[in-house]
């Protein structure tokens, strides 16, 4: 089991609370804040994620999770704080520039290119970082490098058998897998995943969790998710947000027994 070997190899970095982490975080937000018309959607949030771990962010609707992920990906400019990625201050970088530097994301609503084939979806995202996009005499359909990258991403996501299908004809779960594969085809180092399990059945969820567990060996994964069972199963660290603020950030066992978290969010009986 690759996940098992990872756990034994990196126990300190992966499972210790943040204060004790010695590994350098790949992605780090420091004092991030965003106000919408005076209302603080995200207020002074600091969070980081290292290669080899899944850091889950949970919270009720309106807790600011999506705003946070949008500021990390560069879709939304923060009103306060900064974002560091791979040793650079990327706070002022546009989203495409962050993406080319290795910051990939998936969306809560499926955002595949429905009318293109599964392979074309991945080949398109794979060509984002290729040099010379203006070379119009080169056929995109013959781009062997992008096709190889796309096929690897599809294989990792378990979709290599469906490469020729039109994306709109995939099942919901397969579309979510494709979303991840499109992200992987851009060769990211960090993944920001916004509710990848939304609307999935039990079997599809199991497959997606196995995929995430295998991806974290080589990627830093920030996971926003509503499915609590899944989060506690795969997350190495959990940050709990309420009203735009972090009320707890710790390993799953500690979060489960945290009084403030139970009162604010998990509720009795969980």
């Amino acid at each position, binding site marked *: 089991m690759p996940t098992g070997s990872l756990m034994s190899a990196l126990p300190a970095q992966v499972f210790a609370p943040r204060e004790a982490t010695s590994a350098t975080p790949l992605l780090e937000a420091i004092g991030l804040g965003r106000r919408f018309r005076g209302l603080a959607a995200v207020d002074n949030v600091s969070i980081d994620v290292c290669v080899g771990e899944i850091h889950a962010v949970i919270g009720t609707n309106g807790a600011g999770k999506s705003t946070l992920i949008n500021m990390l*990906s560069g*879709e939304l400019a923060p009103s306060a704080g900064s974002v560091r990625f791979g040793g650079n201050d990327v706070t002022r970088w*546009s*989203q*495409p*520039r962050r*993406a*080319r530097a290795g910051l*990939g*994301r998936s*969306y809560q609503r499926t*955002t*595949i*290119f*429905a*009318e*293109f*084939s599964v392979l*074309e979806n991945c*080949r*398109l*995202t794979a*060509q*984002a*970082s*290729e040099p010379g*996009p*203006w*070379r*119009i*005499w*080169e*056929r*995109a*359909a013959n*781009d062997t490098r992008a096709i190889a990258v796309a096929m690897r991403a599809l294989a990792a996501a378990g979709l290599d058998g*469906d490469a*020729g*299908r*039109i994306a*709109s*004809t*995939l099942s919901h779960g397969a579309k979510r897998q494709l979303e991840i594969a*499109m*992200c992987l085809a*851009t060769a990211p180092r960090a993944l920001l995943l916004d509710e990848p399990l939304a609307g999935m059945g039990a079997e599809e969820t199991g497959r997606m969790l196995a995929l995430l567990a295998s991806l974290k060996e080589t990627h830093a994964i920030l996971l926003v998710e509503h499915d609590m069972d899944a989060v506690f199963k795969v997350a190495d660290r959990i940050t709990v947000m309420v009203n735009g603020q972090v009320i707890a950030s710790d390993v799953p066992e500690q979060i489960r027994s945290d009084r403030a978290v139970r009162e604010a969010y998990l509720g009795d009986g969980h």
Partner: protein
Amino acid sequence: MASDDGADDLRSDAAAGTRADVGALPDIGRREAGGWLVPAAAALAFAALPLVVSPYAQDLIVRIAIYAIFALSLELLVGATGLVSLGHAAFLGIGAYVTVLASGDSGASLALLVPLAMAAAAGYAIVVGALSLRTRGVYFIMVTLAFAQMAYFVVHDTKAGGGSDGIFLYAKPTLAIGAQTLLDLGQRLPFYYTVVAVLVLTYAFIALLLGSRFGHALAGIRVNEQRMRAAGFSTTPYKLAAFTIAGALAGLAGLLLAVKDGAVNPELLSWHESGAVLLMLIFGGIGSLRGAVLGAICFTLLKELFQSEALLGSLASHWQLTLGLTIIAFVAALPRGLIGIGARLRGVRAARAGAARST
């Protein structure tokens, strides 16, 4: 019987999902049935027509071919990139006016006029694009319209542009090496074949563009720009490049139109002209280069038909009404345009066959 149907369903489920099953969905690079054969055959037909038709008809074919170039340039924006511009005539008009103004009284060489007309149109396109591409949807339509009307009033209200009467092109362009004239656009047949050659080159260039990584990126932007940005594409430079190329090609069409008419007037830049070329695309079928050419052919022929007093008598003076109603009827019957007629017929036949089987 019931069990047979079940087996059919299973089989179609297993096979579903390839391009052929889903129907007329466009390939990302938009390969169409018959590949190069269909446009090549059409080009040969264009080339052969002067052998059999009258000079008057040749004149009409030249007009059609110029509007086909104009429509193809807009197709790069509307069909390929998803940018609906209602100000595309500005670039046609700028190309035409620059051609006439640069020709002066004694005429000028095509080696000067072609780059000049295309660069002038592309220059204005860069400015308009840089400002209008910040907006989306209906706002983009309005901003492009506003910039085109601005250009319209500049040529309409300035002395250099000749005011509402426009200006004449006194000497048609030529192409010469030393004293040897290679091409004189003042002669009917050389001009005819020049226009057809430019149409073929424009079509081939845009087809090449759409099959490249650049073209695929434009297709991605059309379908979901946000996803393209998340993948690492800086989408604004892509859109601006498409807008500029489309403007330059419209300027080239403008050059040919000025040479054909031997004069320019501000109506070339008016919103009627922008609306007409958009109608050609809708008529022919957005998302297809063949559709753009087909739309230009049918639109121009219908306009000619409805303007003909010999055929329609006094109704000819109301050609806007008859043309408009005809187009509405066509679009209602063929939402994917004339190019979608084959798929439409197949669908009707399949539905009939299905109905026949179930009864």
